[in-house]
Every structure is written in C-alpha cells, then in structure tokens.
C-alpha cells in the first residue's frame, strides 16, 4: 500500500518549524502528497508542463516569483495552466511577495498556498526530511531493540523465551535499551530505524517484578530514543525445529520491510549465558563489518578454497 499525507497534515506538522502562513486554497487541504521529494517548477511556469508532479510539494522561490513578475499578465495564464494539472500544494519561501492572481487561482483550483519566511534551501531540507520520515514504510515488531557496543541488536523469539530478561541483563552491563516488547521499525532508503511506541518508552516488563522504568533504574545513559537495526538475534528453544548451525559458513538474513538484516539464531538451554552470546554476536558483527571474513577464511581454509568453490 502506498502511503500518503494530507496537505493539512503537513501544514499542521511543520507550521511551527517553518512559520507557515496559510495564504489561500485551504479547500485543497484534503489533497495528498505522496513523495518526500519536492519540485521546483521553474520550467513548468515557462510553459513546459510535462513531468510536473502534482503529488509533490511545489516550491516557489526567488527564481519562480521574480520570473512571474517579469512576464507580467502572461504569468496568470501560466500559473492557471500549472495549477489546473491538480497541484496539491505550493510553498512560497523567504516570505516573498507574489503576484495577486496566484491567490485567486489557488482558490479556483484548490491548490494550497503556504508561505514561509525561511529560505528555499532550508525549506526544502526541512520539508523533505519531514516527509521522508512520515512516508517511510513502517512495521511494528514483537521483540527488544538495544544498542550493544554501538550495534543495533533486535532480539526476537517466542513469548516467554527470556528476551526481556536477557535485555535487562544487557542494560545492567551498560548497554542501552531502545524498546522492549514492541519495536516500531521504519525504513528510510535501505536503512531500518527502530524506536519505541511513545506510551511504553523506556519501560520493560520483567516477569515477577512487573513493569519497571529502565531510565529511572539505570539512568539516562541506559536508554536511547532510536537506533539503526543492524542485527537480528533470535532466541530459540533448543528442542525446536531450528537446528543449531555449528559452523556458520553461510551468512543468514532476516527480512524486515524488504531489507536483509544479518541474522543469528541462539538456541536457549539451561546454563547458557545468553547475554554473553548476544554480546559476542554484536562483536562478530563489528568484526565482519571491519572486513574480517570469519575463522574459515582467515585461518582454517586455504585461500583458493574460500574464494573459489563450495564455501557458500
């Protein structure tokens, strides 16, 4: 499903940040913006109306406005042609004064005209950032997200397997909690960002102790508001269907919102120090990222065996 935002939502969301003034066309508030990218419609105003993206925010900066003034009455026709394509929203930057016909045409075509005192480059940055964040594909996952040695580790596994206990132990050892139980993951480009639902931020449930506030217990350095998801660690019952990989030749991946995230399965049996294993998994991730190819490539096999056949 393609996500989109109402122009009204963008207006409300950025009103304070960009000091928006609603100039005209509020009947267009129901129109939708579907891309985080903005468009500068210079050529469209010069009469070339192809490739106009009505579902993007159109930015009128100094160039557009001074061009319209320079062509006099002809400008009204051009703007009319442009708006009649169904343009959802125009943002006039730098607090510029614009030709009077723009407001009338905006009412006629239900194009929302906003004005901000902020300069174009900054407006574009703020609007794209905001839209990218709001339009990003999102999923809520059952698990715990922590920052372990700077690696964003998502711990998953069935209810009661000990995810929260393991996470609490990690926090106790100085790692940082992002979210327990429910993790909101957003995809931006090819990067996944995890946060906690606001209502349960910094909270953890530990069976027997109830719900505890990690920030209160361990201090501000024990939590983080958001973190990249770098690695998925699944805690699995040792008697479950998943056979433990004794060699770990091939890299495994876990799919989240279409992004392949490195993935390891840790079988849980009595006496295993799960916390330690998660720490080691994070360290291995760091090693691999820095170019280490694993013990087989580095020590146990001949070079040509690694590069050539059969190791996949």
């Amino acid at each position, binding site marked *: 499903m393609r996500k989109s935002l109402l122009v009204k939502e963008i207006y409300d969301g950025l009103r304070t940040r960009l000091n928006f003034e609603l100039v005209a066309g509020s009947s267009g508030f129901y129109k939708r913006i579907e891309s985080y990218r903005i468009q500068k419609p210079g050529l469209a105003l010069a009469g070339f109306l192809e490739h106009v993206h009505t579902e993007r925010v159109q930015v009128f900066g100094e160039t557009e406005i001074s061009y319209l003034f320079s062509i006099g009455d002809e400008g009204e026709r051009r703007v009319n042609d442009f708006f009649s394509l169904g343009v959802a929203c125009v943002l006039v930057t730098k607090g510029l004064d614009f030709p009077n016909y723009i407001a009338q045409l905006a009412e006629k075509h239900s194009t929302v005209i906003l004005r901000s005192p902020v300069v174009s480059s900054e407006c574009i940055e703020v609007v794209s950032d905001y839209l990218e964040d709001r339009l990003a594909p999102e999923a809520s996952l059952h698990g715990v997200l922590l920052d372990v040695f700077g690696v964003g580790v998502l711990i998953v596994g069935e209810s009661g397997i000990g995810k929260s206990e393991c996470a609490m132990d990690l926090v106790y050892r100085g790692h940082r909690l992002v979210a327990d*139980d429910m993790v909101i993951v957003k995809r931006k480009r090819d990067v996944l960002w995890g946060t906690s639902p606001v209502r349960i931020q910094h909270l953890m449930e530990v069976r027997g102790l109830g*719900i505890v506030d990690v920030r209160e217990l361990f201090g501000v350095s024990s939590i983080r508001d958001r973190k990249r998801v770098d690695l998925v660690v699944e805690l699995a019952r040792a008697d479950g269907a998943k056979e433990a990989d004794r060699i770990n030749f091939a890299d495994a991946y876990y799919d989240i919102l279409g992004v392949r995230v490195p993935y390891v399965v840790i079988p849980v049996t009595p006496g295993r120090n799960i916390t330690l294993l998660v720490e080691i998994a994070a360290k291995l991730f760091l090693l691999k990222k820095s170019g280490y190819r694993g013990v087989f490539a580095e020590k146990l096999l001949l070079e040509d065996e690694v590069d050539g056949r059969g190791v996949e």
Partner: protein
Amino acid sequence: MKREKVVVSNRYGIHARVAATIVKEASKYKSDIYIEKVDDGMRANCKSILGLLALGASKGTILNLEVDGEDETDAFEAMKQLFESGIEENE
C-alpha cells in the same frame, strides 16, 4: 485463524489492570492471540502487557481480534467474551 472485530467497552480503555487481565486470560492458551487497532493498524500481542499498553486503546476503540493456533476455538470464545463483558475492573 479466527478473526473478528471487538470493541473496547471499559470506562478507561485498556489501562494497566485491564491489560494484566487480558494477558492472564490469553496466556492460558497456546494460540497466538493478537489485537490490532482498526484505525492505525497497530498490533499487539495479547500475551504481552507492554504491547497492550502501547496501543493506548480508549473506550470505544475498534479492534480486530486475531487468534491462530491449535486451541483457537476455545481461545477465541474466551477472549471475545472477555472484551464483550467489559473486563472486570475491580479485581
């Protein structure tokens, strides 16, 4: 899998005590039991108290109740009845 809409009928919505009751009931069954807010698609595992609290479901919120597993028929009836009864608030 069984799936049906239920409405939160408690005066104060799914707050901590209510969530605890839901978790207690859901944990009696092997099936996976989820509720999902119809308006924003947020999903919570009924066996997890924090997930339920994260929803912030107030009175009148419409939820999809989803039960999947070997004892889904019993679990579904029990959960549905729990929501419809308004969930005991004075335990």
